[in-house]
């Protein structure tokens, strides 16, 4: 056992019931799904209650954890699979990393449950919706709390399922159904990577538990570690909408907005970051894989930012923004020890402000009869004051307005990237800075098109502020957006808290002083915002997207052709292949069988002709046979 994962000490007291965190929402989901219509009236309250309770337990556990030496407890529940060499114990690993995630999930989750009470008030499927939400929370918690890669895998696919169910929540919309299927499939591709990584660990080390694997990383050949790292990365990309598997995330916005906020912004999509951070000991042993992580992060953050600039669908813009922000996090974890804490910090902060932004967007849609087309918005600031303020704070936090969350966490990442030094350092830093500028551009564009300028509403739309159950969470998240970064970086430095997981945070010698970085970044951000104002703030926004635009814009609008590529490389060939195989099976394989039968039948009919019914031909047959027999016998003996 090396120091990366301190040996667990026997668990007692509160921590021994940490499993409640998972079981509570799971029970809620089960109750709502099995209870049927009986639970329609109070189901949503129950669901919200379970998550709140889970948050309470999580908080208590975290506090209890801080008292413990090593701040790590491992909790074995029961034997899941035990045969041959494979021994998988269903158990929990409660350490600072999982604790942080647990708090994020249950905390933001609770708020979004509350929000949904209002948002889904009039939806006939409300019970189902809350059941799925609970299911998601449970699965996500299993993902972050499991003590082995298998447990993680179970949660991993569990959240995939929940995501599928929630994206397809309005399943009578073909678009929703298709988007859900797409999300599940692309996730499955990633899952295969994760699964293979697990197989590889088992084949090499005979175990799949974090403790076991990290304890014997040293025994692995370099190539193997790299392979594992890359396979894990594939899984992470699938779940977190990273290049090349990012195409599903924007489509996922077909789901109800609270879902987008919770699953496709705050929590699930960050699972990839968790996976890589959790596997730090493995990545520390393979610079190659880590470099690939870096590259993926950098590429994705640009893709996301660029695509975000061209969309008019408010949720799609936020979705691409998410893709881009997670790109930052990948970039950070790719940097290694210096970046881990930064990544998690950004992840948590992002959880707050991005959730807040989505909830705000939801409130806007709520006001605009579920329209998402920003070209039909405008001038909503006065109509939706609370939404405007909270959304505005989230916006500032996201673009990295000084002293708000984003500023703290994003700058940390950019610094870390630059500190890498050398060409790669400059390139990555440059990319990160550029990304910040683009972020400022598309977010400002969004703000202006939505809240400022002349109203461009469809007739018959009467915007009104959302009910308290919706605004309250937005307010709370807004506080988070403002304060989270400051708290996580300065007050309770996350790097210190995470020390048991990632080891001592080394104080990197800054090649570029943080101050300079901040100033440069702030300038770039300002430029970005200004450009946005020049584009959409100054002049009238056309209510329909201009058709004749530069190829760059077209590309951006089409998400840099991700779907096009997928279709032409995977979907169409696959369909052709299927078609061909169906034909082959019917004609070829089965054809052979039926053909043989037909041949026999034909042969029979033809042979039957010999049976002419003429005595003399029969006699000839007998004579011929006799001659044959006699001849053969003579031949045999002679």
């Amino acid at each position, binding site marked *: 056992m090396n120091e990366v994962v301190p040996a667990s000490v026997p668990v007692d007291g509160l921590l021994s019931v940490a499993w409640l965190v998972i079981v509570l929402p799971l029970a809620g989901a089960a109750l709502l799904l099995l209870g049927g219509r009986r639970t329609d009236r109070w189901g949503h309250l129950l669901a919200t209650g379970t998550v709140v309770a889970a948050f309470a337990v999580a908080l208590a556990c975290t506090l209890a954890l801080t008292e413990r030496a090593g701040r790590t407890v491992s909790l074995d529940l029961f034997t899941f699979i035990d045969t041959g060499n494979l021994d998988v114990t269903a158990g929990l690993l409660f350490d600072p990393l999982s604790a942080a995630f647990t708090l994020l999930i249950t905390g933001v989750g609770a708020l979004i449950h509350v929000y949904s009470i209002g948002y889904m008030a009039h939806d006939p499927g409300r019970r189902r919706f809350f059941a799925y939400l609970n299911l998601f929370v449970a699965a996500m918690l299993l993902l972050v709390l499991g003590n082995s890669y298998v447990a993680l895998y179970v949660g991993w696919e569990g959240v995939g399922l929940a995501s599928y169910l929630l994206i397809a929540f309005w399943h009578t919309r073909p678009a929703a159904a298709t988007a859900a299927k797409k999300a599940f499939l692309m996730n499955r591709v990633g899952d295969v990577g994760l699964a293979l990584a697990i197989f590889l660990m088992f084949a090499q080390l005979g175990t799949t538990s974090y403790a076991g694997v990290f304890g014997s990383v040293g025994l692995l050949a370099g190539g193997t570690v790299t392979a594992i790292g890359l396979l894990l990365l594939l899984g992470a990309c699938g779940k977190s909408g990273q290049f090349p598997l990012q195409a599903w995330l924007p489509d996922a916005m077909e789901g109800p907005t609270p879902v987008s906020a919770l699953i496709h912004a705050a929590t699930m999509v960050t699972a990839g970051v968790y996976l890589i951070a959790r596997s730090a000991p493995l990545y520390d042993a393979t610079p190659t894989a880590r470099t690939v992580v870096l590259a993926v992060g950098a590429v994705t953050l640009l893709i996301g930012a660029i695509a975000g600039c061209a969309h008019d669908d408010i949720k799609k813009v936020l979705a691409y923004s998410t893709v881009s922000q997670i790109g930052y996090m990948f970039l950070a974890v790719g940097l290694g020890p210096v970046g881990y804490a930064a990544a998690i910090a950004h992840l948590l902060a992002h959880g707050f402000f991005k959730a807040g932004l989505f909830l705000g967007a939801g409130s806007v849609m709520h006001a605009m009869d579920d329209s998402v087309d920003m070209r039909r918005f405008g001038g909503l600031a006065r109509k939706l004051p609370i939404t405007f303020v909270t959304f505005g704070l989230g916006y500032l936090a996201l673009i990295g307005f000084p002293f708000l969350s984003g500023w703290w966490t994003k700058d940390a990442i950019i610094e870390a990237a630059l500190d890498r030094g050398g060409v790669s350092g400059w390139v990555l830093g440059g990319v990160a800075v550029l990304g910040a500028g683009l972020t400022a551009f598309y977010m400002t564009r969004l703000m202006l098109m939505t809240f400022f300028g002349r109203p461009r509403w469809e007739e018959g739309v009467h915007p009104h502020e959302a009910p308290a159950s919706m605004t309250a969470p937005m307010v709370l998240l807004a506080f988070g957006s403002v304060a989270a970064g400051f708290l996580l970086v300065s007050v309770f430095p996350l790097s210190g808290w995470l020390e048991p997981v990632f080891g001592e945070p080394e104080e990197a010698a800054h090649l570029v002083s943080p101050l300079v970085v901040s100033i440069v970044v702030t300038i770039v951000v300002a430029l970005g915002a200004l450009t946005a104002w020049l584009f959409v703030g100054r002049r009238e926004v056309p209510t329909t997207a201009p058709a004749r635009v530069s190829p760059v814009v077209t590309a951006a609008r089409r998400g840099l052709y991700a779907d096009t590529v997928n279709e032409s490389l995977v979907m169409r060939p696959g369909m052709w292949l299927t078609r061909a195989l169906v034909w082959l099976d019917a004609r070829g394989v089965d054809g052979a069988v039926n053909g043989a039968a037909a041949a026999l039948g034909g042969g029979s009919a033809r042979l039957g002709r010999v049976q002419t019914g003429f005595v003399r*031909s029969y*006699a000839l047959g007998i004579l011929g046979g006799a001659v044959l027999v006699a001849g053969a016998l003579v031949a*045999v003996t002679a």
Partner: protein
Amino acid sequence: MGAIEAPDLSYAALAPLLFVFGAACVGVLVEAFTPRSVRHPVQVTIALVGTVGAFVATLLLAGTEEVTAAGALAVDGPALFLQGTIAVLGALSVLLFSERALDPARSAFVAAAAVPAGSVRDRELATSERVQTEAYPLASFAIGGMMLFTAANDLLIMFVALEVLSLPLYLLSGLARRRRLLSQEAAVKYFLLGAFASAFFLYGLALVYGATGSVRLSDVRVAVVTEGGSALMVIGLGLLVVGLMFKASVAPFHSWTPDVYQGAPTAVTAFMAAATKVAAFGAVLRLLYVAFGTADWTWRPLVYALAIASMVVGAVLGLTQTDVKRMLAYSSIAHAGFLLTGVIGLGPDGTGYGLAATMFYLVTYGLTTLGAFGLVTLVRDGDGEATHLSQWAGLAQRSPLVAALMSFFLLALAGIPLTSGFTGKFAVFRAAIEAGAWPLVVTALVASAIAAFFYLRVVVLMYFSDPAPDGPTVGVPGMPTTIVLAVTAAATLVLGVLPGAVLELAESAAVFVG
């Protein structure tokens, strides 16, 4: 001039033969001296007495091993076992002959064979109760000939027995009351080809005699050992085999089988299919094992080839048949092939499981096929039996019992486990594999898979198709047929589930003398 010392005849050992031949002769006299009114019951009784008596006699004789009649007859295990089998099958066939409940004219046999078919007189007689009761003595003679055939320890006796069993059959196949043209045609074909084939047998006999100076199987055996196989002798062997294979309806000497089986009265067909096969294979086994057992290198490849030919021809040609009787004829050709697979199983110096297996197979096949043909007599329409397959469609809804029984017999013929057909196949295939002939066995298995198709086709028709509105009716059988069906069905089941006793019997009987 010394006194002629007559050859010693052990009448006890000949009891089975005496019973049957006695019954036959008495039957002839009865034809001559009893009024027509009482003939039928009397004839039936006599024939039954003869066959049943013969069966009992074989049981009592069980275990005797002697060569009698100056070495012309060998009364040994195989002979008795097969004689018993033939007696039973004969008795059952006689019962089938005697069925009077099914045909409105109260018999499947013609009133007067001499009357030209289609003539005015013929039409008058068509509905009369008059019956050509000579059928029974003829049958008795045939049965006797068959039993003699299996005991013949001498090529001459074998030839005589061959004729004694054949000639009555030629006549019997011409005696159908319905569709007389077909029946007569069957008789002509069977007769001409039969005579033709026996000529070959006879020529073979002559050549073997020339080569060895004797027609006694034992002497031939000795001669084979001493001077090896001369060309003369192997040709003789070949021609003998031809004659026998013709009777056993083995391809390529099978061509008569479908026509005759279809044309002959169904009861007679049943008799031929069941009993003749037994007799013919009895002779084949004796000839090959006793006379040429030491020179099996001469005939083994030949039998090998014949077996394959027969199985393939039977299975493949059966696929496209549209007439039940004809289909069963091809099935009998295929089964002849399976039987030859057992014949291959002759181990070194007479050991080996082949003999017992083949004999057991003969029992199972005989009983099953008899039952199947027996069922065919039940399905009738306006002009006699409805043998066209299309008429069997949806039979299960008309008469579930008949359909179920038929399916059972067909599954047995296909060799599905828990039926006698499977046990029999298992026995012969085992024998063949022990003799190292596994390619033959694989061929046999594929052939039986193919054959299974046309058996299944009947089942499909009976169960899964809808009956034609003007389909055939299922006659209510009288006591005789009922007995036959009961016995055969029971035997098919018992020999499939608990074959132990009969298998042991066959094994203990599987020793030739002479």
